């Protein structure tokens, strides 16, 4: 059935193909905007802004996102090589870079316009509430590997930096609506305007309703709906400076299923219902030139998140201020330094078998960093060295140095190497949380697992050795290879101690005590390679393959019972993808993406391959229609283990959309 569907699509494509070749342009009478759309016949030098960056960077562009058919930021992240994007339920994702993927991947930092969205309660990113109007995203920079020196703690295995467009780039009206199976319905609207020459602004609103995943037991608890709105204003100021004020607010209902443990029989209940998650943020950013050759950025934000889940509530206020100054010293040195402070205050309410002590806690985080980028040989060799010193309330001072170098032996190739230290600092989940989970009934009484807080939990530490190579062997081909070896120390463990009996609260019950610790160490290593091939001006291929191996070992005396297995077994050893993008005649575009992921032994999750297809048709310059098929290769497939809520699979789905811009 699927094959016939493909065939129909391809026949449609063939009909659309005859494109008219245009005659030579009269460059003289074209506007700058028109010129920007003309392709050059000879491509040389820096093929991408990222080509000289001394790190494994992949940039997902606005065009990539639009053409992928992605409806959420996690789906868009599937475009980046070496990123493991898995959907646990319809409304929960586990996303990781270079390993340690989990519902809340603790070693990856995510920023949206400079605002850190890492949760310091549970150590990780709640992807279901990280959203914006997708068309407002200018680019997503995905950095594989550590970036603690510039970005701070928890940028251990990778950084996802989401940057939205300036308000000058979103002038006019934009309306999009659509729906289908799984994507039940969605609508977005944006208006951008200006006041005088110096103030540009936009405002947007969006709503969507998404269906549940595939449930072997038929219990479709994970459908969700949410609404979000926001704005951005950019002022141009005198002296080549600018000020940006932006903000967002969201409110949604997210279907959940949880097991609630109780000390009275039957000891465990299944809770099902909607979590209500809401929040908002305001960001102010002042930046521009300072002195003869420098520039600065002063940014501050306030962020509020409310999580009213089935088993606990948290309300958190975060206030952050960050200053950065870059200056050229002589002609060979580019010096960047900065300082930042963050205050994050959370209040929790929970049940007797899952609670934080203290319930409310305010965390302070302060840091300073400096980095010098030296042009050793102009156009050929650059070296940068830097260090960040950070102070947090859990472990005190943390030092994160790095040395990176880029060698450009010719215009068409670049080699980079880096040695970096990064840390993942503790969160409240390790130091303040107690959870009881009912395991089974023994003849004398019930048996529970009890996770106790560990106030002595230390930072997880990593030293990374990276090497990368980028080459353009032909005008139409761009290839990158990067490899890394990470040494891991004080890695998170779940340590179990001997079982004991407890009489209170009644009835008499048995406890297996667990505690998060740092009793694992090990290494991870991997290789990622990408190729971008422009077969013809209208047909582009992109492919990538990544290999990852994680080996963890228990320290002498370690009592770890689960993290060694999870750390090694929840990241795929092999991931590959292939994309084709075709620009056909009459404004028709066709995109196809195949991704293959090897098995996750700790799930267990079997290996799978699936594909997405998008057919777009720009009917008029203002109107585009699109039909998108997602996860097409099988009726449903599992991507990540569901844990106590049971496995939920990703269904095959199709949706259509109409977009109007003016």
């Amino acid at each position, binding site marked *: 059935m699927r*094959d016939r569907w*493909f065939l129909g699509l*391809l*026949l449609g*494509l*063939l009909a659309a193909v*005859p*494109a008219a*070749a*245009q*005659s*030579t*342009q009269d*460059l*003289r009478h074209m*506007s*700058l905007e028109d*010129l*920007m*759309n*003309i*392709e*050059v*016949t*000879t*491509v040389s*030098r820096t*093929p*991408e*802004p990222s080509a000289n*960056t001394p790190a494994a*960077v992949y940039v997902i562009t606005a065009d990539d996102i639009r053409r992928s058919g992605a409806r959420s930021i996690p789906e868009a992240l599937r475009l980046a090589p070496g990123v493991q994007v898995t959907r646990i339920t319809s409304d929960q994702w586990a996303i990781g870079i270079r390993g340690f993927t989990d519902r809340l991947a603790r070693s990856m930092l995510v920023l949206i316009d400079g605002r850190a969205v890492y949760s310091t309660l549970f150590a990780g990113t709640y992807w279901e509430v990280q959203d914006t109007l997708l068309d407002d995203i200018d680019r997503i*920079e995905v*950095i594989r590997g550590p*970036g603690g020196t510039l970005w701070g703690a928890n940028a251990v295995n990778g950084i996802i930096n989401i940057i939205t467009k*300036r308000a*000058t780039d979103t002038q006019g009206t934009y309306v999009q609506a659509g729906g289908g199976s799984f994507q039940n319905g969605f609508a977005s609207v944006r208006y951008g305007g200006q006041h005088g020459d110096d103030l540009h602004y936009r405002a947007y609103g969006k709503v969507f309703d998404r269906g549940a995943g595939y449930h072997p037991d038929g219990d479709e608890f994970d459908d969700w709906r949410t609404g979000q709105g926001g704005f951005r204003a950019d002022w141009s100021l005198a*002296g*080549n400076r600018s000020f940006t004020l932006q903000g967002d607010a969201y409110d949604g209902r997210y279907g959940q299923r949880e097991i609630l443990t109780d000390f009275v029989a039957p000891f465990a209940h299944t809770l099902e219902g909607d979590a209500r998650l809401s929040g908002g943020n305001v960001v102010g950013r002042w*930046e521009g*030139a300072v002195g*003869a*050759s*420098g520039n600065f*950025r002063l940014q501050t934000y306030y962020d509020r998140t409310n999580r009213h889940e089935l088993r606990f509530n948290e309300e958190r206020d975060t206030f952050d201020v960050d200053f950065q100054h870059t200056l*050229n010293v002589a*002609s060979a040195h*580019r010096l960047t330094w900065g300082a930042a402070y963050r205050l994050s205050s959370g209040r929790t309410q929970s049940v007797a078998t899952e609670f934080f002590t203290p319930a409310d806690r305010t965390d302070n985080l302060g840091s300073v960093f400096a980095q010098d980028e030296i042009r050793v040989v*102009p*156009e050929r060799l650059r070296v940068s060295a830097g260090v960040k010193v950070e102070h947090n309330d859990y472990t005190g001072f943390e030092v994160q140095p790095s040395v*990176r170098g880029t060698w450009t032996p010719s215009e068409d190739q670049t080699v980079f190497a880096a040695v970096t230290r990064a840390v993942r600092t503790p969160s409240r989940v390790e130091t303040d949380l107690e959870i009881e989970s009912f395991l089974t009934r023994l003849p004398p009484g019930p048996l529970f697992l009890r996770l106790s807080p560990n106030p002595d939990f230390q930072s997880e530490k990593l030293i990374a050795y990276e090497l990368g190579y980028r080459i353009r062997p032909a005008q139409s081909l761009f290839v990158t290879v990067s490899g890394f070896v990470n040494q891991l120390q004080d890695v998170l463990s779940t340590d179990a101690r001997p079982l004991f009996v407890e009489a209170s609260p009644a009835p008499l019950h048995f406890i297996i005590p667990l505690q998060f610790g740092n009793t694992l160490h090990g290494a991870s290593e991997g290789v990622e390679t990408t190729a971008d091939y*422009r*077969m*013809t*001006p*209208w047909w582009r291929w992109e492919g990538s393959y990544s290999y990852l191996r994680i080996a963890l070992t228990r320290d002498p005396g370690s009592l770890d019972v689960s993290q060694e297995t999870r750390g090694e077994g929840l990241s795929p050893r092999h991931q590959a993808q292939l994309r*084709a993008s*075709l*620009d*056909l005649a009459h404004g028709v575009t066709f995109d196809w993406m195949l991704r293959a992921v090897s098995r996750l032994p700790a799930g267990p999750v079997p290996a799978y391959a699936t594909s997405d297809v998008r057919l777009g048709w720009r009917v008029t310059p203002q109107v585009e229609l699109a039909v998108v098929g997602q996860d097409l290769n099988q009726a449903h497939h599992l991507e990540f283990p569901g844990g106590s809520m049971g496995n939920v699979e990703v269904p095959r789905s199709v949706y259509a959309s109409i977009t109007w811009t003016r």
Partner: protein
Amino acid sequence: LIVAVLAAVALAPVHAAAPVAESRLKAAFISKFPQFVVWPSAVIASHGTADICVFGPAGDLRAALSEIVSGDTLHGHGMRVREIAVGRDPSDCLVVFVGSHAEAVAILQRVADRPVLTIGDYPEFLDDGGIIELRVVDGRVRFEVSMTAAQRAGLRIGSQLLRLALNVRGVEKGKRI
């Protein structure tokens, strides 16, 4: 599937807008930039012609540029393209184009605080102190602007130009790795 896709290739003729040689396209960009730049009025008054000076071995580009700007005027003065030797003082030019780092340093030092629009097309041109850097990204010509350098030269860059820039230095977004 693959057979069908291959058939699509065989049937598909060349895509929409015909590609243009890189040097010609860059020349077209260079010819447009001055329209978005405001020079101090005294500077414009003191010049008889509006000269775009091209340094070094950029023969194709210079020829294309001459062809494109012939007959055009800039702020009331006829535009002219001149080839200029590296040792010469370029400060009577309104626009200077430099094609490589080797030539750039000496030239940029001479005109850094003069009202001269400097344009280059090699990586790190902005690091050397230039104002507009052309580069090819994804097969299309793009440019970066250094507001810091423009300010030092006493030039005002129009917001329409900044809006189209890939990046504007001096109002930098994000962090550098």
